[in-house]
């Protein structure tokens, strides 16, 4: 028995996706810090890659000599630490959160076309934010912009959830349809508000709806980061049950998985995560749909491999998108949602046509 067992295990490591999983993790784990440093060196105030690294290290580690020897100007320090780092981190957290929420929603409704926004959460957040921008905080009980957006996201998620319930079960098709319907309704109201408001507000509205991390402060990343951490731990603990859910509710049930309860919990987790991200960064599109598919193409459909690659890949993708968003038309900022679509769509289509896409289930 032992020789075939040994060869079977060696074989297991050669399987599709298993061998590339380790590589993908290592590459992402190296590229993410490199991107953070690179991002510190891009902008109007000139900072070299090395100086960016020195500033970041100097703030994180006490007693670094270059922080006090006058080789770095206060302007450089402020640009890297107070402006570029927070927005890069927010981009990373937002990208990771949207990508993870997308992967979860695809499993919840067992549909490769699902993305975080099918819950109508982004439309709800958009309406909340646009109410504040066009009518002022007083219109929404004195809430600030991101609080109003978060509230809008959660209320919408809850309404869609309740509409999708039938006999105590979440029906995937009803979930998609009610999310789309509620989303359209709220978007219509948002559009109306946008068209009837003063011209000066329109720019802010568009920036929110398309998504942006430009005004980020470190404090903005705290809530999305905490929610991301919680949801990521929960999702990883459910990775095997998620696989069972992909095989169908009956199969999952036969394997001891409470499909309805798992689906409800995943939906709540995805809605919270999406709401937390959208309320700070706006409705950044495309990433939640595409990153999970890229992850599947790279490492196969098993959630224990897909989820970590999705989270890290989403973070990296949005960090790079932000880098482009503020450098292509410098000093003008492009909304990051435009960059994710303009850069992401061709990349995704190329990947989809690539021969390895079979493992992501795209040959059907």
């Amino acid at each position: 028995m032992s020789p075939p067992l040994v060869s079977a295990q060696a074989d297991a490591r050669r399987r599709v996706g298993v061998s590339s999983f380790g590589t993908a993790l290592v590459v992402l784990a190296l590229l993410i810090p490199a991107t953070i440093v690179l991002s510190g060196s891009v902008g109007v105030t000139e900072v070299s890659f090395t100086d960016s690294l020195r500033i970041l290290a100097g703030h994180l580690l006490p007693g670094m000599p270059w922080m006090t020897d006058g080789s770095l100007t206060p302007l450089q320090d402020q640009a890297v630490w107070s402006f570029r780092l927070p927005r890069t981190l927010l981009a990373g957290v937002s990208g990771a959160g949207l990508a993870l929420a997308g992967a979860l929603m695809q499993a919840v409704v067992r549909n490769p076309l699902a993305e975080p926004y099918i819950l109508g959460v982004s439309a709800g957040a958009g309406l909340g934010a646009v109410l504040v921008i066009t009518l002022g905080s007083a219109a929404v009980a004195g809430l600030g912009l991101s609080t109003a957006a978060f509230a809008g996201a959660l209320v919408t998620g809850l309404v869609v959830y309740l509409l999708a319930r039938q006999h105590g079960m979440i029906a995937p098709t009803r979930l998609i349809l009610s999310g789309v319907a509620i989303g359209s309704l709220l978007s219509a109201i948002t559009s109306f508000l946008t068209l009837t408001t003063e011209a000066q507000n329109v720019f802010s509205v568009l920036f929110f709806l398309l998504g942006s991390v430009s005004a980020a402060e470190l404090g903005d990343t705290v809530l999305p980061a905490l929610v991301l951490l919680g949801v990521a731990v929960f999702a990883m603990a459910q990775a095997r049950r998620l696989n069972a859910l992909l095989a169908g509710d009956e199969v999952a049930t036969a394997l001891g998985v409470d499909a309805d309860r798992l689906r409800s919990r995943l939906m709540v987790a995805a809605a919270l995560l999406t709401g937390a991200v959208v309320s700070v960064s706006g409705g950044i599109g495309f990433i939640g749909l595409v990153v999970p598919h890229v992850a599947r193409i790279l490492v196969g459909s098993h959630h224990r491999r897909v989820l970590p690659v999705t989270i890290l890949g989403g973070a990296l993708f949005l960090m790079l998108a932000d880098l482009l968003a503020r450098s292509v038309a410098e000093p003008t900022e492009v909304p990051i949602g435009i960059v994710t679509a303009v850069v992401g769509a061709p990349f995704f289509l190329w990947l989809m046509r690539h021969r390895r896409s079979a493992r992501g289930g795209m040959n059907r």
Partner: protein
Amino acid sequence: MSLDVVGVSIDRGGRTVVSDVGFQVPRGRFAGLIGPNGCGKSTLLGGCYRAHRPTTGEIRLDGRDVWREPRRRVAQRIAVMAQDNAADFEMDVFDTVMLGRVPHQSGFGADSASDVAIVDEALARVGATALRHRPFAALSGGERQRVLLARALAQQGELLVLDEPTNHLDLAFQLDIMRIVAGTGLTTVAALHDLNLAASTCDLVLVMAAGRLVARGHPDDVLTPELIGDVFKVGARRLRHPDTGGLLLAFTPFPSSTPESPER
């Protein structure tokens, strides 16, 4: 382990699909559940693995009601080969069979070496080792059935529930699959369409019609031309297999205008 089904009725979509069904499958026996399409076979099997909750009655494994046990515990004891397996997302054969280990696994981390060995052994038993790396969705109907049986074997339950396991299978593998299942020695309930397969394999047959259990017992005793005429609306002759001496059924269509039994 023995299976006791006691006075079970199951509703689906407001309609009673299974109505007051009761039977026992003793430990280690192979029971074939037969009946025309829509008679409630799949729903009744679903009652056993907790997909469809009975409105009345109990389904007991060694005396314990499966609907009062923790879900996961039930899934550790009942291995299921269901009819449908969604494949909207690509999964390879190995991962598909590894799903059978879900009720036994917990927490984070990779699949253990023993899980991998169990999956490989299950694949070998159904002759699907060569399919290991293939995407499940790219398999032929027969190959899929093999893989789904492997998943049920990897689940390592004490009761095996099979919903039309020989669907899409060529003759050789129909016989093969029955031999594999019988070889496990597990208590088995299988929904079957082929009465000759049921007659040659099962220790007992359970005959359902319109949600009710209309007959049960040894295939030789139960599969009479009268019963087959009543339940399946076809004419049947009982023959003896020239080599094995076993029961062999030959069917003819019912003349649709003849209300009475043709077996007079």
